[in-house]
């Protein structure tokens, strides 16, 4: 299903402010869920389905979410789903809710994601797990996530002639936007000099080029268009596409958590890279193109990675991302602001929540209620990220 026929309504959006709050993930998710329900004007007992984006529960050997939030909000018998797709968990939760709504399995669905992130680098679960490539990259290579960000950045410097000073401008831009967002963890402006003065984490990237880990929660109340109409909501923000595509073999760009790429000797590489295919699938499903966008929310795990997204989203040709940035096109007030929320640079990562938080930002922007960071006249927005192990994630919302 593509175009308006596949629309669902965003009735409510809610977040818990991000940071290091010292509470459990259930607290952040429940605060966000209650906020989304209040925003939607929907009683929790009327929710037909709850979809949770999974997190690791402290002390519990597993991934839990959907039922945990349902219990915290008060058992009421709703259909329940829990999804894990690393950084794409939130998008898959939205995708699951959308499929249920379009199939008529529910009229109104609550989507929740929240996390209380551990301190420092992300690390794999414990044990001696030599059959797990994610465990092996830490064990054998010390290949923490920022190492991959550093490899991407260095490759862009070699291929496109970019510089660490170019990368720093992404942080300056996103920090300026985040300073205007009450839900962001970091709410102060950052200068290029401050980025350059921060310690190197994974050369050529410095501490302020790389997003932190955070606590946070985000939630959405999604419904069928009929349900919205019955509630008197005539012109809601609509989700028109959810892309959850996988890569196409052979995948030829080294990416987390892999130790090697696929070999391209038995099959030619696909004409587009994985990240670009995530965006294309979303555009095709929504029946729009990059020229229709009012704004984009992308996973800026590192400053250099945000530049790559400009090209993968089709905002500019390969190698021209820095020009777009320097022209101010992707800043607030520019032609197509990217990460008007402040992005991960301002929020930090709370893995199961972030893809949902991106859609919260699109919702507020398309409603025109984003305050000082409002993109004037916003009509179409896209989110983009990817989950570890080959999970695509992009959502298109329209008004």
């Amino acid at each position: 299903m593509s175009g308006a026929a596949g629309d669902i309504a965003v009735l409510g959006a809610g977040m818990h402010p991000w940071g290091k709050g010292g509470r459990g993930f259930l607290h952040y998710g429940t605060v966000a869920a209650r906020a989304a329900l209040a925003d939607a004007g929907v009683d929790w007992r009327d929710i037909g389905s709850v979809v949770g984006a999974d997190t690791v529960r402290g002390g519990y050997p597993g991934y839990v979410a959907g039922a945990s939030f349902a219990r915290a909000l008060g058992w009421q018998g709703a259909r329940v789903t829990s999804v894990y797709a690393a950084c794409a968990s939130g998008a898959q939760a939205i995708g699951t809710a959308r499929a249920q709504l379009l199939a008529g399995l529910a009229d109104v669905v609550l989507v929740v994601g929240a996390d209380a992130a551990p301190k420092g680098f992300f690390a794999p679960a414990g044990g001696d797990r030599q059959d797990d490539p994610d465990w092996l990259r830490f064990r054998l290579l010390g290949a923490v996530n920022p190492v991959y960000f550093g490899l991407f950045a260095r490759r862009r410097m070699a291929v496109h002639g970019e510089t660490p000073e170019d990368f720093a401008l992404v942080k300056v831009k996103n920090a300026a936007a985040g300073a205007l967002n009450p839900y962001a963890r970091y709410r102060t402006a950052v200068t290029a000099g401050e980025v350059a003065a921060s310690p190197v984490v994974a050369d050529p990237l410095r501490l302020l080029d790389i997003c932190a880990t955070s606590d946070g929660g985000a939630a959405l109340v999604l419904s069928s268009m009929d349900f919205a109409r019955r509630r008197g909501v005539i012109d809601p923000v609509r989700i028109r596409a959810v892309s959850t595509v996988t890569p196409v073999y052979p995948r030829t760009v080294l990416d987390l958590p892999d130790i090697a790429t696929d070999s391209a000797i038995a099959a030619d590489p696909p004409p587009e890279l994985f990240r670009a295919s995530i965006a294309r699938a979303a555009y095709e499903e929504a029946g729009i193109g990059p020229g229709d966008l009012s704004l984009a929310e992308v996973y800026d795990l590192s400053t250099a990675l945000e530049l790559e997204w400009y090209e993968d989203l089709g905002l500019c040709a390969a190698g021209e991302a820095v020009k777009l940035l320097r022209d101010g096109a992707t800043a607030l007030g520019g032609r197509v602001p990217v990460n008007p929320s402040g992005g991960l640079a301002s929020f930090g990562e709370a893995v199961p929540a972030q893809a949902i938080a991106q859609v919260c930002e699109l919702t507020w922007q398309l409603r025109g209620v984003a305050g000082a960071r409002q993109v004037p006249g916003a009509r179409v927005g896209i989110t983009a990220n990817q989950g570890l192990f080959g999970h695509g994630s992009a959502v298109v919302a329209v008004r």
Partner: protein
Amino acid sequence: MVDGWFRDGGADGFVLLGTRCADCSAVFFPREDGFCRNPGCGGEALAEVALSRYGTVWSYTEGRYRPPPPYAVDPDVPWEPYLLVAVELAAERMVVLGQAAPGVTLADLVVGAEVEVVPGVLGDGAATWHWRPVGAAR
């Protein structure tokens, strides 16, 4: 640790070991012993193959923070930054990540330069592979 990923000694010297599909000739590293992952193939006969010993630098980075467990470090040795190199192997048309050999510095690396695979040792004494610029001192 990682049995069958590399082999030291013999006429070939030190080599990384992958597997090759008998049907489509796709190469896999780390080794894939069950099923070919080429969606147009479906082969199940995968034979061990030595990878090219030489390649070119695709990208590189220096990690300045000590990774969390399970990274193998010797607690009695002070923490030192370490280099990771992603190396493009022309014959296999693939990129393989590895640490740089001890003594290699950022200044020794440039994208496109030739490197070779050499034996290495992890912080806990386990064997591994390293990449070293061709012509660099041992």
